[in-house]
């Protein structure tokens, strides 16, 4: 494409983005601080626009210069947000997650792959005590929200509206088929965090730590049942009505990085965790294909412990259960 064509295309895009009642030459003239005549000359490609002028127009009308000028950068575009006290609250973080899950659900075929460094995020929402603890931990210790600075942890502080959002997210997640690649260390950090709060006197008493370990045991029992059955079901459902398919892999070699790959009817989306907590997403084809291949390789290297391989499954769940039990024993309750 030659430069005249680029210029023509630019003004075509601007025309499409200009409201019908507005005059495009006037708007361009105003933005570039030139006369309407000069704007016309540029629109008719009688005068080449400069790089500065291109920048002013593109940023005003939100036009991708890389696409317009056909610049190949080998780059990958990610989108994401960062939780903070002022512009992106935890409610918004959960609401964003809910919208994303609802979007996945709208497809006929959908599957979610999770490379676990920690327990998958959604599983924190199974039992209210764990959801409350993680919320408090993230805001106080990880994000250092000033309003949490001097607070001690209390289960009752967890707002109902957040737990409702958790349940909505979990409800949608349960509908999806999922494959999770676990490592024996994937539960270590949550245990470490409970210990840390105990040492730092953030709990009112050891009773709180005990309650959390019991909640973890409850979560762990549920995950084991899901793994044995090969499908997800609502926690506490006596009928264990089957929801999405559940495949759990035990990887003894690599600890994952909490990256998530979602495969829908016609595309793949990759979610990368960075600085532990925030997510960013891309649909870049080469990137998502590469992640897909990497996950496939990791699954081949792992043992499928859902539905089949009872012995390995029992061993995996037993090791973690013993770790929780050991911590419980050490409490002064």
């Amino acid at each position, binding site marked *: 494409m030659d*430069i005249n064509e*680029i*210029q023509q295309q630019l003004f075509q895009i601007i025309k499409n983005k200009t409201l019908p009642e507005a005059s495009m030459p006037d708007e361009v003239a105003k933005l570039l601080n030139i006369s309407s005549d000069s704007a016309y000359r540029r629109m008719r490609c009688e005068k*080449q*626009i*400069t*790089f*500065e002028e*291109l*920048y*002013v127009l*593109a*940023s005003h009308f*939100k*036009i*991708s*210069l*890389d696409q317009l*000028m*056909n*610049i*190949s*950068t*080998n*780059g*990958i*575009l*990610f*989108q994401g947000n*960062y939780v*903070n006290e002022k512009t992106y609250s935890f409610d918004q973080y959960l609401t964003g997650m809910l919208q994303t899950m609802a979007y996945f659900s709208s497809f006929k075929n959908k599957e979610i792959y999770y490379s676990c*460094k*920690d327990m998958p995020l959604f599983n924190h929402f199974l039992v209210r005590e764990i959801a409350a603890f993680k919320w408090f931990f993230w805001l106080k*210790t*990880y*994000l*250092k929200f000033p309003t949490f600075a001097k607070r001690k942890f209390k289960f009752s502080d967890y707002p109902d509206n957040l737990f409702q959002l958790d349940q909505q997210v979990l409800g949608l997640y349960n509908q999806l088929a999922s494959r999770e690649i676990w*490592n024996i*260390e994937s539960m*270590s*950090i949550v245990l470490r*965090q409970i*210990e*840390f709060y105990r040492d730092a006197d953030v709990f009112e008493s050891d009773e709180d730590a005990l309650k959390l370990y019991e909640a973890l045991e409850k979560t762990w029992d549920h995950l084991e049942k899901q793994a044995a059955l090969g499908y997800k079901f609502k926690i506490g459902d006596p009928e264990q009505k089957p929801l999405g398919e559940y495949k759990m892999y035990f990887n*003894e*070699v*690599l*600890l994952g*990085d*909490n990256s998530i790959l979602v495969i829908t009817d016609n595309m793949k989306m990759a979610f*990368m965790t*960075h*600085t*532990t907590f*925030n997510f960013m997403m891309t649909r870049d084809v*080469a*990137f998502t294909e*590469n992640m897909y291949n*990497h996950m496939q*390789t990791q699954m081949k290297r792992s043992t499928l412990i859902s539905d089949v391989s009872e012995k390995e499954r029992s061993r995996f769940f037993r090791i973690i259960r013993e770790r929780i039990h050991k911590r419980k024993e050490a409490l002064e309750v």
Partner: protein
Amino acid sequence: MADYQSQEFLFQRIKELLPLHVSLVDTVANIIHVSSDSAYRRIRGETPLVLDEARELCTHFKLSLDQILNVQGGATMFQNVRINTKNYNYEKYLTGLIKHVEYAASFIQKEIIYLTKDMAVFHNFYYRPLTAFRYFFWMKSIIQDPGFVDKEFEFSILSEDAEKLSRELVMAYNKVPSVEICNTECINSTISQIEFYKDSGLFTSSKDIRTVYESLEETILHLKNEVEYGAKFMPGENPESKKSNFLFFYNRIILGDNTVMVVTDRVKTAFINYDVLDYMSTQDESFCNPCYDDLHKMMKKSTLISQTGEKQRNIFFGILLNKIKERKKHL
């Protein structure tokens, strides 16, 4: 942005990409086919760039205008480095890492902040047996090089080139001031990989397994020594002669994700590690600034054990060394 500021941004970014000995004026003149004088006028903002010239420059340097000028808000552009493609091998990967570190070293002010999940990649390369094992594991299990499919581990598998580059990488890293935020899970992956290869019969003798564990042990002891001095040096070098350029934090609360932030005079660059060896980088301020703040929050929550905190340092390294000792007992 007023006047020719976006033009200035573009040239600034190009300047950052050029090695120090290469002239910006000559390079620009060459790419857009103008005289040095004309190039100079454009760089100084006296002559406006036209679209053709901007496009030539961006295409040549593979620069994203959207990223440089932040045209589309809310999105971050990353440059991707992936090792397991056909025309990109391990040696090139190491060379790329060396270039990144040397580039950072060329600035007056520089710092590397490393939030580790595993031990920082540089520490794998002090001693040959561990370097050889890591190389073998990555080639066989991660890159899945066809030449490694039926191979068993032997120390001679590490090529001279790969060994030389690995050492060059550590030496380059040692010159740049750095901060590492680490927890005691950082050697678990290495240990489980040794165990996995042991169980899978990929070692030819138990002597080899012991040698790899001993090498890991030596590595941890060397790292402990570096942390104690707050300086980075190669085994055998005199730590007294090294600058104090190493801060090491013991983090008990989260396991990092191998995020690396390189801060130089002008810019912050975030490197995000994925799929074990691959990484991608960005200089987008809307991404790098919050990421930088998060890393500082992590430091505040962690215990500084370099040059200070002897008791905590002994606890930290004691835990790591015990993990290795336990495994050695079972050989």
